[in-house]
Structures are given as C-alpha cells and as structure tokens.
C-alpha cells in the first residue's frame, strides 16, 4: 500500500476521462519492468540515470527487418550503422546476426576493426576520409564510398600504389520527391554529376566502379521515396554497364528508415504513423527486381539502417529530483537525465512513463533535466500523474544516437546495461569517473602547484 503523493493545492482544469473526437486525450500507462527485470531493481543496483538495452528486442527488430528484405530480394546485406550506437556489445550483437559495419570516419573504422570485423565487411561512408584512412581501407578491401571530386582525386592517387584498379562506390544524391532534399552527400544524379564522376573514374583506370550508394535523408516516412531512389540508382547502374561495361555489384540505399519514435513536429504518435518496415522493403525490392537487371548481374542490396533497428531496444531510467510549479501555473518535474545524456530530446517527443502509477490526476508537465541551462528540456509537455522526488521514470525509445551523441557536459555520463535473452543483466559501459575526463589533460609544468612537504623528525 503506497501513500498517495502529496501535492501542493492548485486549481487546474480537469482533463481526465473526457473523450473528444480522437479518443481520450490522456492515457494512463506505467512500465514496471524491462524484459521482465523490475526497473526499480535496476535503478537500485546501477543508479540513475541508466541506459538499458534489450538484447531480445535488438535481435527481434533486426530479424524482422532482415526478413522483410530478404524474402523480397535474393541478395541482401545489412551493415550496422556505427554512428547510431557503437558500444562494442551492441555492435557485436548485430555482427552476430550477420550485419557488416557501416562507418563514417576513421575512428569508427578503427572501432570496427578492433571488434574483429574484416575489412571486406566494412562500408566506409562519410565526407571526410584522410589519405591514410583511404590507403588502409583499400588495403583491407573495405568498400569505400566516394563523396566528392577531391576525395575521388585523392583515392586515385592512393590507388596508384595498387597493382589492380581498386573497386569503389560513389555516393549519389537525387530528387526522390521528398522535402528536405538532401544534396550534400555525394554526386548529384539529376544534374548528371554522378555519371560524370563514374566516367572520370573509368577513364582514369585507377579505380573501378563497383557500387552506388545513396542516403536520401533521415526519418523518411514515405516508403515510395526509397522506391524512387532505388529505381534511379538502378537506371544509373544500367547506364554505367552500357557505357563502360562495368557491372555494378551492389546498390546501397543507406539508412534513414524511421523508428517508431515521434518527432516534435508529428501530430500522431510514431507507433501509429510510422509505416511498417515491410513497406520500405517492398518499395525498394520491387524497384530493383523490376529494373530489368540480368539475373546474374542482380546487384546486392545494402541496407545501413540504424535507428529503425536499435531505437526500440533502448530505454532510459531516470529519477525525479524535484517538483515545481512554474510562474504560468504549469507543473514542472526535474529529472536527473537531461539533454546531455538524452540528446534525442531535441528531435523526439519521447514516451515518458512512471514506473508505478500511484494514482492522482494526470497533468501536463514540463520535464527538465539537471543542467544549469535553459535548453535542458526533456519534454516540453507530457501528461503525467503526480510524482514525488525519488520516483523512477522510464523514457523510451532512446536506443539510437544517444549513447554516441551524448556529452559529458557538467555531469559524467551514466552507465549502460544490457538485458540478455535469459534476463541476465550486464554492464556494457560503466559509469564515467572524473579520471576518464581528466585523463587526457596535461597541466604545463608552470601551473603545477608546488606542495611543501614537511619532513617530520
């Protein structure tokens, strides 16, 4: 029997229970367990805030997505987008499932190699690749996706050191009928730049075109945009075959598939408005199968999805630090996880749930983080029942980007745990300590304070 939470007497408009045309405006939900493990037990053992990942969900989502593509297309290869979440244990799960690695920098490249991913299972994207990184990638057989002409020239220079022409892919951007139209990655297709780049490469003789890559945007809610991109790339591939004789061995449609999270600007919740991944798979696979490739020249389809696979698997546990009434009468709750750890708060209206619903009337609430910064707002408005300091909340989905884009600003970064398929809990990244932050620093000699040591005796 828990005691009802004390609330300072306030007069607010009653919202609960009344239906309007979209149904009940508020819902009461709570979440006591993650994969069967009580949230409070996790918080007690590992503290708060705490990132919790579910191995079961990761594998389930991966297999779901892989199934959607692989039953529709005979040659499919997923590559795990490292930037979405590059904690070793997480990457390892994807590699175990058969994923290659998609990296966008030499740091990520090193991470993948460190984890034992062979070079020939790495897709190397990103607009900045150093000469040294290119050399290593070529040597190890990685799939390098060229982003711009200067990179192309540099790649040609490096390729001179090899006996055979080095196979590479180019990144291609195009109009797929969506807004915003991303045109910053790679060579533009509609203006003919992509084909020119291929011809440049072909006549240079140092590089060999092997693949086409595109990354049409992020959180794309229209599956047909991918269908159009796939058709356009297939056309380009056939033109390249026609004019240079080179067979394009793979077409990479990048990532950008949405998770079931809800963007700030979306009206309906993501769980309702995000199309199922099957729709994306059907659009892409139908476009490629219908493009008229000879059966033995059907390109392999690469998918670099990150967010759509991992987002649901990550949950954040946070603790209420205090309650507040703002000057305009709104209720505010301060929690111990802010935008420093939960970077995606800037993009999403995360689902925030109490661990126990102890009753009381739900009320629109601002959720503030612990930073001493005005921007530290986790949710500008979410309907929550009364909470008291120390209560646990869960925030979801937070699996994508947070553990790569988080900052140690003001506070240290929290630990990350993984719940295994048998319910076992392992720390996969421990909580940071001050030494982790101060370790790389060097204090010049002149700032070192001389301590006087008095010798006794």
């Amino acid at each position, binding site marked *: 029997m828990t005691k009802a939470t004390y609330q300072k007497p306030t007069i607010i408009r009653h919202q609960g229970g009344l239906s309007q045309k979209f149904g009940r405006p508020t819902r009461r939900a709570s979440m006591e367990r993650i994969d069967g493990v009580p949230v409070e037990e996790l918080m007690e053992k590992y503290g708060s805030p705490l990132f919790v990942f579910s191995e079961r969900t990761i594998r389930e989502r991966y297999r779901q997505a892989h199934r959607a593509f692989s039953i529709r297309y*005979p040659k499919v290869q997923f590559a795990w987008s490292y930037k979405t979440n590059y904690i070793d244990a997480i990457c390892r799960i994807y590699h175990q499932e058969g994923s290659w690695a998609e990296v966008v920098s030499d740091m990520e490249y090193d991470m993948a190699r460190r984890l034992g991913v062979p070079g020939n299972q790495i897709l190397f994207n990103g607009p900045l690749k150093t000469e040294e990184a290119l050399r290593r990638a070529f040597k190890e057989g990685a799939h390098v996706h060229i982003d711009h002409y200067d990179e192309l020239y540099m790649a040609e220079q490096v390729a001179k050191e090899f006996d055979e022409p080095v196979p590479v892919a180019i990144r291609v951007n195009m109009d797929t009928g969506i807004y915003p139209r991303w045109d910053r990655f790679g060579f533009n297709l509609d203006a003919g730049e992509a084909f020119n780049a291929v011809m440049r490469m072909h006549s240079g003789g140092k590089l060999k075109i092997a693949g086409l890559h595109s990354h049409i945007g992020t959180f794309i809610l229209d599956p047909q945009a991918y269908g159009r991109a796939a058709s356009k790339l297939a056309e380009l591939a056939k033109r390249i075959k026609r004019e240079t004789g080179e067979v394009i061995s793979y077409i990479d449609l990048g990532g950008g598939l949405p998770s079931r999270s809800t963007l700030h600007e979306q009206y309906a919740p993501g769980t309702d408005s995000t199309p199922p991944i099957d729709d994306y798979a059907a659009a892409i696979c139908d476009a490629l199968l219908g493009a008229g490739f000879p059966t033995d020249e*059907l390109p392999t389809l690469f998918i670099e999805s990150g967010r759509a696979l991992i987002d649901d698997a990550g949950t954040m546990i946070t603790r209420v630090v205090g309650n507040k009434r703002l000057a305009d009468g709104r209720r505010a709750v301060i929690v111990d996880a802010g935008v420093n750890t939960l970077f995606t708060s800037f993009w999403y209206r995360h689902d925030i749930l109490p661990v126990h619903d102890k009753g009381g009337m739900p009320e629109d609430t601002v959720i503030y983080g612990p930073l001493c910064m005005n921007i530290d707002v986790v949710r500008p408005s979410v309907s929550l029942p009364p909470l008291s300091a120390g209560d646990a909340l869960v925030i979801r989905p937070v699996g994508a980007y947070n553990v790569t884009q988080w900052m140690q600003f003001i506070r240290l970064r929290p630990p990350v745990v993984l719940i295994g398929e048998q319910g076992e809990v392992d720390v996969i990244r421990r909580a940071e300590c001050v030494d982790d932050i101060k370790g790389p620093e060097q204090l010049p000699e002149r700032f070192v304070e001389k301590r006087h040591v008095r010798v006794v005796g």
Partner: protein
Amino acid sequence: MFALSDNKPWTGAGVQGAKRVAATLLRPYAQVYFAKSPWVGFLFAAATFLAPLQGLSGLIGLIAADLIARWLGQPKDLIDRGFFGFNGLLVGLAIGLYYNLTVPMVGFLVLAVFFSVVVGAVLHYLTTRYIGVPVLSTPFVFAVWAALLATRRFSEAEFALEPILVTHWGAGLLPAGVELYLRSLGAAFFQLSVASGLLVFLGLLIFSRWAVLLSMFGFAGGWIVYSAMGGSAVDLSSHLIGFNFILAAVAVGGMGIVLSVSSIVYSIMAGALAAMLAAGMLALLGPYQLPVLAMPFILATQLMLFVVMVRTGKGALELVNGEWETPESNLNRARYRHERYPDPAVPVVYLPVSGRWMISQGPDGEHTHQGAWAHAWDFEVDDEKGKKHRNGGTTPDDFYAYDAPVYAPADGKVVRVVDAIEDNPVGEVDTANNWGNLVILWHSGQVYSALCHLKKGSIAVAEGQPVVRGQILGKLGNSGRSPIPHLHYQLQASPEIGAPTLKGEFLHYVVENGHGKQYVTHGVPDLGQEVVPLATDENVRRAVTLAPGREWTWAVSRGAERFEETWESRIDPLGARKIVEKRKRGQAASLSFYADDAYMTALEYEGASRRLLGLLYLGLPRVPFAKDHDLTWSDNLSAAAFLNPAANLLRDLFLPVRELVRMRSHSSMRWAEHGLVVTTHLEINSDLPFTVDRAVPERIEVHCIPDMGPVAIRAYRNDHLICQADLIS
C-alpha cells in the same frame, strides 16, 4: 631452423629413364589381373620367367605390342595403361607355350602381336563408343586363334613337344584343390606349375585381399559346377580353364561392380557361368583343335557388366564409376560418394525463394503431399515466435510470405503459366482450381518444376520463354487450394498441371534452428525446418580456391620432425582437379577435389598419413563459399589413409558389410585478422579393439587468404599443437 631436404635430387636422367622403362614393362603384367603396381607386375613377370624361354617370348610380345601401338599413334592413355602391352604379352606367352622359339617363329610372333594391336585398337574404339564394356583380353584371344589356325599351314612352326621342366615343380605337396587353384591362377599367364601359381597368388595378395577372396569364390563357383555336373577332370587339370572362373569373378565381383554381399554372389555366379561357357566352348572348339583361352571369362564378364549397365532400377548391383582401382578402393570411393554427394539419378534444384522460409509440409506430409504427390514442399514464412503474419492475419496481405518473389529453381523453359485466378480470402480454399496460379518449368529430360498458389497477375514470364536459375517468375499469392499464403513446389516428370511428383533434392541451403545454422550441400528439407538459400561470398571462394598451376611450399613441424613439402594444383583435360605433392622420389601424395561457384569439397586423399596434404584433406573436407560466418557443417570422411596396417586390413575385409572405422568432421569458418579460418573437428568411431589411427588430429585449423589459398595449417590433439605448417613460398 628447419633441417630440410633429406631427399637429394635425382640427377641422373638415366635412372629416371630406367624407372620409366621398368614401369612400362611391368604394368602390362599387372594388368592381367587388373592391377597397376610395378611390384605386382614384377611378381607376375617372375612367374612367367620360371619357364625362361616362354617368359622371354611373352616379354618380346609385350615390347612388340607397345612399340607397334606407339608407332601407330594409338591413344597414349591406353598404351600407358598397358592395354596393348598385356594383350601382346599374352600372345607371346601362348605362342611361347605352343611353339619352339625359332627365328621365323619370333617374326611370326611379332605378326600375331601386330594383329592383336590392330584388333585391340578397333575393338576398343567400337566398344567404348557403342557398348561401354571393356575389351579385356579379346585381342589376345583373336590373335592366338588366328595364329594357331594359320600355323597349320606353315611348316616352320615347330610344336614344343618337350615338356616344360618346371611344370611339375611343387606338384603334389599341397592338397589337390589348393594345387588346382594355384595352377589355375598361374594359367592366366600360361604357367602350368604350382610355383608360378604361388608367385601369382602373392602378387594378387599384394594387389588386393578382396581380389584374392573373390578369386577363391569364383574358382569355387566354377569348380562346383564342374564337379556337380560330373564334368571331365581333365578340363580343369590339363586345359586349365579355371583361370576363367577366377578372372570373371574378380572382374564382376569388385572391379567393374562395387563390392557388396550381392556382388560376391554375382562373382560366384560369374565363376559358374564361366565354367558353363568353358565347357560349351571346349565342345565347340574341340574339333578345330583350338583352346578356349580366356574367351569364357571375356564373354561372362562383358555380358554380366553390360546387364548391370542397362538396368533401369536401382537393383542390387552398382557399377564402378571411373577407373578401376582395387575392389576395396572402388567400394570405398562409391560408399563415400553416396554419403557425400548427390545421387546423379535424382534431380537437384535450388530453393525457389529467398530469405528464411519454413517448410509447413514436406514430402509425405499429413495434408496433401501423399501418394503420387508425396514429393512436394510447402513454404511459408514465420517469425521467431512462430507467427506467420503481422496485424491480425485476416487478409492475405498480413502474411509475411504474401507478395514475396518466387524464383526459378534451376535453368529451364516455361511450359505452362496460369495467372488469372483470384486470391482466396484467408481460411478459404478454391478446390475448383486446386493448383491456383502457377508456373511450370521444363528443366531437362523428364524433369519439370511446378510452383503453385501464386498471386493473380504477378507472373513475370511467358510460356515458351527460357529462364535461368534465380530469375523471378512471379509473386506468392493465395490462389487455389490455399487457405493461407504459401508456395507449393514439386518436381514432376511431365508438364501437366497436377502431374504426379518426382523425388528430388535441394542444393546449397542452410537449416536454421535454435542450435545454429547448418549448411547442407544437398538434401530434402523436412517438415518444420527453417531453410535459407546459401548466400555466397566471392571472397570465401577466392580464399579457399586452389587455382590450377598454383604451388605451395610449406615448412612443416610435426613433433620432432621438420620437413618441407611442396604442392601443386593440377587440372586434367576433363576438368578433374587435384593437388599433388611434388617429390623427388618415392610415392607422392595427392588430394583430388571438386569446386564450383558454391562450394569446394575434397574427394579423395591418397598418400601417407603423416604428409601435410593429408591434413588438408582432413581440414578442408568441404567449404561452402558462404557469406554467413556462423554456419557449421558436417561430413563423413574415409579414414583409409590414416589407419595403421592392421586396422586397414580389418576395415577392408569388413567394408562390404560395415564400415568399422567411421570418421565424421564438423566444420565452421570465420574471418580473422589475416583471412579466413576454417576449423574442423574430427571424431573417429571405431569398432576395433585397438588404436586405429596414426597422426589424426582432433582439430585442424586451415588459414586461407583470398587468391593465395591455404597459408597456415595447425593441427591439435588434446588441445596440444601436434603439427604446424606455414607457407614459405
């Protein structure tokens, strides 16, 4: 670091030449009893030289046949195999037995040999082209008959009336039956003595223990016919027709036909049949004063092989595929071919889908795959929780499998398309159009594929159109007798819709279950199995490729031994591939293998157990060029090359009824820092009471690098490194 090269190169070309000449001369002797080894040939030759002049006559015949065949440009492999030589040898031995070797007679002998070469060349051409049974010693029989008939009109031919001294050597020492058996063995070389018979027996024993047993069975078979029917004892003891029983029994019992209990019965019948034919021919040829020679054996053998060749059912007997080795190795090869490779008589196709599919009904299924339609598969898609649909599963579209592409399982031609039947609502069936929308493909001969229950209007091919494997045919729907979306696939012998099914197998797929992913080269997926077509990776192919012409030189350290070993990858004109250990002297090891665009597999290892090449056989029994790195696969390997002599002897003797020493391999692979690592665990199950294996590790790792092939080999026993080899060039 390595105490290298105890083998000094042979510098003298003369020594090499002498060895070659010796091999050329000895092989025809061995060939009389289907053997190849020069040692066996040497013993047989020794048997003929117990009557020196006759032996010389045989040798002259052999050399003459060889030279004439070369002069006439006959096929080199025939000459090398000793086909002309052994016929010439027999002509020489026969003429040496019947006539005194005068100068004109030597000339006449050469003429007879010439005739045998001509007859041999013609008959070999005709039989290989039109009949397919071996010529055996027919040229010799024709040549000797011709010579014997001709000499009646040639007065220079002097009959050898002097009894050959050695005929009685050793006579009477052994029981009569044994003596008769031994003399009959020798009679194949026109030797009449027990001593010669004993030498031939020794040679045969070296060649093959089973050949010896078969020779006894055949002899007994013929002898029983003779004694039971009250045949003349003179036929056996003086005409010495007994070798016909023996040769026929060995030829059909284990050389031309794979050794088995049935083949042993068949060999006894061959001996008996040869006896009957011999008696008949003695009666027929008697008036002409012609000996029957080897004709009963030839007739019995050719007929009995031919009748097995033209069988249409499986039958009790199986022909030996490829070159005849020994009864034991013919059987060994056939047994492991059955266990390891698809039956050539069963059509094989690839899975007609992509991704992971569940067999919801297999062959002899409980719903509809029964009777004449037993050999069929139903494919559905389910998720980890066993659910086949998202949402409520109330419309076909909710099902994962719906609208998935269906691919041609093999090359072929479209012979039938139905594309206008509506999809059923979930739970309903359309028994009026039982098979629904479908595509029927003709692959080859009487092999057709039917892919049924497709989606209306989805079919992407037209009747008469040729298709290649993997080409999209249409999309999966819910038409016909299909309550929920699924693909019905069957092989059939005719192009009609609903034709009875044909037994078939799928190639290259992966079975997924809770325990992992098992690669299957060929097999019949069963009810409830989750199957995925093998996705191949060019890099794996390049890593385990053993490209023809490539050479490897290894530094091997095995226990206290340090040695170097050099291999060369070879390909013959027919495309058969092997790796041969290059050695300056002695018996080199060889490993034959097969590779295509989906996998490689080691076929047979011949060589000493401690050579490094043997470890390659054990370490790379089979490698799918798989993209997935978490596959495992198993194989049954022949332990023959790795057993000690006692174990080998026992194993060989029991082989027709039971494999006493079973070796099973379990392999997996992974990409490591420096390339591909294939790890194979070996498991030996032996029925023998003593230790059987020599140098067989429990675990082998073969490290491969794309375009280089194997670069390092490690073998472990009880987790201790017992052999380590690294590529030095």
